[in-house]
């Protein structure tokens, strides 16, 4: 290890952390603006052109706000909780590559922080640590709304993590590797979202639940729990929760892009053309950023459209629909890959059967909901 390696790490970490934190600030702007347009409003437009200085104004306001610690709160845990929430949200992207390896002045740069063979395992591990922050925040506040928010959060994360993990297993099966870079390279010709559409949909729904975003924002349901686990937080500590939530959105969007939409690689039809990342490495971050923005658009779109789940239906959906469907899809993918070793044409088993399974799940869900409605009337 030379000083050049150390310098490379420092620069890469700085890019990642600053990118996530700056991205978080402007993601709030993006969300507010987009949500406003979907609700036929303008959104922030007073601070600078198009309200572009709004995140800065928000930050200044939050920094100068008074910070309260309730007398009955567990002080140490109360202060620890926002930190525990924000750190995993930032370190989770360490294994996500932004571009293929490239050379500058004869020095080979690996554009990701950690090159570990079990990259996916790292992502799942870090993603679940973030729950601790929320639960501790809820409990240490000594407030019934906060505690309920924290409890809901645990229950929700435990239920949806299963489907999340299983749809990641599909990706591992298809790519034949747990190394994130190899998974991206395996999607050079066709995205896993096309090979396994149902898996991609399950993954996206589960990540929405994992992010506590509408329609799964039970832990912070404003109308029921005022603000859930962060009611008692103010000033910079509240800003940290906010920061965690939004930088996690970016992180998860980049993970969705990487696992199912080809990561930094160009779309399949551009493979081998001059727009390929194999020709110009710097197109990698452009493709990745474009995909992240589109996925974030989807998340905001879902928030603008869908009402919040009822809590029991949320759990029922997680355990009775998502989990069996995810298991079935892992099974189908494994069978398809096994058959394809004799004849590649059998690969078609995977998309066809899993889309069929997905439609059956939708149909059954519809049937059971209709039966409940008819039982009421």
């Amino acid at each position, binding site marked *: 290890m030379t000083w050049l390696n150390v310098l490379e790490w420092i620069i890469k970490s700085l890019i990642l952390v600053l990118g996530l934190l700056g991205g978080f600030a402007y993601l709030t702007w993006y969300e507010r603006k987009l949500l406003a347009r979907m609700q*036929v409003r303008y959104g922030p437009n007073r601070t600078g052109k198009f309200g572009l200085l709004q995140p800065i104004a928000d930050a200044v306001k939050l920094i100068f706000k008074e910070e309260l610690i309730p007398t009955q709160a567990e002080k140490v845990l109360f202060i620890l909780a926002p930190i525990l929430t924000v750190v995993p949200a930032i370190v989770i992207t360490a294994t996500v590559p932004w571009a293929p390896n490239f050379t500058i002045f004869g020095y080979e740069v690996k554009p990701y922080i950690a090159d570990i063979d079990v990259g996916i395992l790292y992502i799942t591990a870090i993603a679940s640590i973030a729950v601790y922050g929320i639960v501790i925040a809820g409990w240490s506040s000594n407030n019934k709304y906060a505690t309920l928010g924290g409890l809901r959060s645990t229950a929700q994360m435990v239920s949806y993590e299963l489907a999340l993990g299983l749809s990641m297993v599909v990706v591992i099966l298809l790519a034949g590797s747990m190394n994130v870079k190899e998974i991206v390279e395996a999607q050079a010709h066709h995205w896993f979202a096309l090979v396994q559409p149902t898996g991609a949909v399950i993954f996206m729904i589960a990540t929405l639940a994992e992010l506590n975003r509408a329609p799964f924002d039970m832990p912070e349901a404003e109308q029921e729990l005022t603000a859930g686990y962060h009611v008692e937080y103010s000033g910079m500590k509240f800003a940290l929760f906010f920061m965690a939530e939004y930088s996690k959105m970016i992180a998860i969007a980049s993970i969705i892009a990487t696992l199912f939409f080809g990561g930094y690689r160009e779309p399949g039809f551009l493979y081998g053309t001059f727009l390929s990342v194999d020709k110009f490495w710097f197109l990698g971050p452009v493709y990745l950023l474009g995909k992240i923005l589109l996925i974030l658009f989807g998340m905001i779109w879902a928030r603008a459209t869908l009402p919040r789940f009822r809590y029991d239906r949320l759990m029922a959906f997680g355990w009775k629909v998502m989990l069996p469907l995810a298991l079935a899809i892992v099974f189908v993918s494994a069978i398809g890959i096994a058959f394809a070793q004799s004849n590649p044409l059998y690969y078609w088993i995977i998309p066809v059967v899993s889309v069929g399974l997905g439609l059956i799940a939708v149909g059954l869900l519809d049937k059971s909901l209709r039966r409940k409605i008819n039982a009421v009337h």
Partner: protein
Amino acid sequence: MRFIKPLLEFSAGLKTTFLSIFEKPVTVQYPEELRPVAKRFRGRHELKRYDNGLEKCIGCALCAAACPADAIFVEAAENTDEERYSPGERYASTYQINMLRCIYCGFCEDACPTEAIQLGESYELSYYDRKDAIFTKEMLIDPVPAGGAPTPQVTPKGQFDRSVPEMQDSQD
């Protein structure tokens, strides 16, 4: 069909929110863009003048008597032909309305024998100090109309003896 229909319903919802991005926002950009007030809107009071610049208010204090919130204070003084503010014997030397007390009922308007006080269209009434809520005569009175002269005026003897103008058939 059972399998497709829920998805179609789902995408119909998504389509609605997506298409509303391209609609014109209904927001009114308030300080720059003011919505017109209703025809009979009751805003801040205005003290009116005659075309020659004389004040309509004769200091009778009927408005103060009619005011249910006791927001109006009037003090009258004598007019002379050398120093005339309004037709007739007297004029309002002090006229104050406490805008924090006023309930904008418009009774003062009804009580006024000369139609001197009228509730206008201005609704941007906010202050940093409670004392600023008391609007004086200078703040309430209309500017002198074109062709009129500012008060006090020197007027010919015997021309403005009558304080209440002779009304034609009442319009309202």
